[in-house]
């Protein structure tokens, strides 16, 4: 199997130093540090700062910024650029995210590495353009049509916005899949200290191209890790790729047998590698009566509630989902028989919560602390929920 190679970031791309940056600006710098050289996007509050910063920074590092006519064009342009061998990203929010869904599916089907930052806002529809929400999480999972698996990361701070954007690029190159960075308006617009390290401290996954000569190469013969090697465009490979269900040759084949093979591998590519992808941070799980799950900004908002509950002697554990998708099913299932309750706190009316409920499978109580969005949770509500959960 062709090994995964890592390379240090290019010092010209990395704005090393300590700054006060908001999450959006940090995300943009993360993309730059990861070696992104193509951005196609469409302005949408609250993500626009990412586009604006990139439009300022790119000419200095040899990148191309293009503001496309709509989000569908943006999604497709980053796919095209990625096939052209250039790391590419886009950014959007709820309404634009919906528009990008069809062609995100194309990215899944063609197995194209790229990064999509969704700075979530209140929805549905036009909703609350300038206020946070976390209500696109299920859409990240199922927004496009058909069966597929996704990778979605949720940063909780500008520092993490920087780091997770780099991580998203690495995951996308590693697994040949478009990766979501699901921030929200709160993280996006909050200004905090961001430390951008030296380039030698940033490791980047190198895209794996085929080493076979053109006559022997077919686009979708997977390596042992179920990820096929990409062909370089313009080097005589003369390959064909399509959004239609295809076989290992990349040619469309319209029958159930090939559908099974094609879709199964696309899903297994993530499911079978889930252990390497899933990233959760646990705290005080040992002996916990109740475990509180959260992601993104909410994981910071719940801290006062947890502290208050702990003061009263309640043993509260925490799981912060850094990767929301793939969801850590195994861990949640495993813990369900050891604890009294899961408390899921998210800035929506219940999305990732249903995953928790499904995995708990009745072995423990599951409590949702919902929020319509527009502002972060009141820690008091979280505290009340924790108390309810241990009753």
């Amino acid at each position, binding site marked *: 199997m062709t090994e995964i190679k890592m390379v240090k970031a290019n010092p010209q791309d990395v704005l090393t130093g300590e700054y006060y940056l908001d999450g959006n600006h940090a995300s943009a710098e993360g993309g730059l540090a990861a070696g992104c050289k*193509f951005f*196609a996007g469409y302005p949408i509050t609250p993500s626009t700062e990412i586009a604006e910063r990139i439009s300022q920074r790119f*000419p*200095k590092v*040899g990148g*191309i910024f*293009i503001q*496309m*006519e*709509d989000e*569908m*064009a*943006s999604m*497709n*342009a*980053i*796919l*095209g*650029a*990625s*096939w*052209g*061998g*250039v790391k*590419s990203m886009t950014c959007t929010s709820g309404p634009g995210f919906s528009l990008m869904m*069809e*062609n995100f*599916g*194309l990215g899944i089907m*063609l197995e194209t590495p790229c990064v999509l930052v969704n700075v979530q806002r209140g929805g549905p529809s036009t909703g609350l353009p300038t206020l946070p929400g976390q209500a696109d999480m299920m859409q990240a999972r199922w927004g496009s049509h058909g069966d597929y698996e996704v990778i979605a990361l949720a940063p909780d701070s500008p520092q993490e916005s920087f780091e997770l954007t780099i991580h998203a690029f690495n995951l996308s190159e590693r697994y040949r899949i478009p990766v979501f960075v699901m921030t929200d308006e709160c993280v996006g617009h909050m200004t905090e200290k961001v430390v951008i390290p030296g380039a030698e401290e940033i490791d980047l996954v190198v895209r794996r*191209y085929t080493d076979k000569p053109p006559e022997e190469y077919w686009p979708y013969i997977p390596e042992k890790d179920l990820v096929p090697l990409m*062909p*370089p*465009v*313009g*080097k*005589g*490979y*003369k*390959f*064909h*790729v*399509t*959004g*239609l269900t295809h076989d290992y*040759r990349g*040619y*469309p084949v319209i029958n159930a047998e090939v559908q099974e093979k094609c879709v199964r591998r696309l899903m297994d590519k993530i499911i079978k590698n889930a252990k390497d992808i899933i990233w959760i941070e646990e705290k005080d799980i040992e002996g916990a009566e109740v475990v509180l799950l959260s992601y993104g900004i909410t994981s910071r908002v719940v801290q006062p509630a947890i502290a208050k509950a702990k003061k009263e002697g309640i043993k509260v554990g925490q799981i912060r989902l850094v990767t929301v998708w793939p969801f850590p099913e195994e861990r949640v299932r495993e813990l369900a028989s050891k604890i009294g309750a899961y408390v899921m706190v998210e800035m929506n009316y219940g999305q990732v919560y249903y995953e928790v409920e499904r995995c708990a499978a009745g072995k423990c109580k599951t409590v949702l602390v919902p929020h319509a969005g527009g502002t972060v949770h009141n820690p008091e509500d979280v505290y009340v929920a924790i108390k309810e959960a241990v009753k």
Partner: protein
Amino acid sequence: MSTVEIVEVRGKVEKEHPMEKLLRMDRIPHIWCPTCGIGTAAKAFASALEQLEIDFSNVAVVSGIGCTGRVAGYMKLDSFHTTHGRAIPFAVGLAIAKPKMKVVVFSGDGDLISIGGNHFIHTARRNVDITVICVNNFIYAMTGGQVAPTTPLLANCSTSPYGNFEHPFNLPLLAASSGAVYVARWTALHVRRLTNAFAEAIQKRGFSFVEVIAPCSTLYARRNKLGDGLSLMKFYHDNSIIKHGADPREVDIGFQEKIVVGKFVDIEKPTYLDCLNEGYKRVFGDAYKVYGEEDEQN
């Protein structure tokens, strides 16, 4: 003429078609109906590439969904069969990432002009250096013959069973007014002129657009009782008027009326990357490294 070498011909030796080097022979015969004009357009495209004597590795074909969209699957080039209407933005990304490649969008009228209409006009406006070949058979063929934005008034289609009551687009006008630097229209019958138009369009710097009026036998011709593709070709023979430099505003196509063909627009205009480079140079001076000049690493 094809570049088949003349070896001693002893009787009828089974030779391969001269264009087979540009076709994925493991997928031939293709899916298009007998008397469909798309095959002819594909042949003209292959001939144009041959004529240009360019490195076939340096050409990429991007297509959308539809009968014409299948062309990408048959051409032996780096080819991408993308989603409906989105061939052009995909090609924009690809063309920017690989500025030295010839990126050709080869798709149908419904795909490029209806769902892809927004991308079409904006990419023409930006004058991105790609070539767009639109095979116009006046109908959504692949899905069974629905009315398209190019369907002439009064034509019968499966979703306009009593006749089409919508004015169609005039594609050369749309392209020209959006800023395309090369606009031509030929029918599938005018193969040699079509080949030359393709060759010129591919060589042209900037957004070049070639419309190919092609017969759709199974749907457009049959539903409108026009015979088959051959009857439509005969119609093109008798009703095409060649008018180079015609005003794009005057080349509308009515139902079974005269078709004006020719090269309508051939101008020079800085491309998207030209403007970008010039703009950044103006601001950053010599510190700015011009994009697209050196060979890209992959």
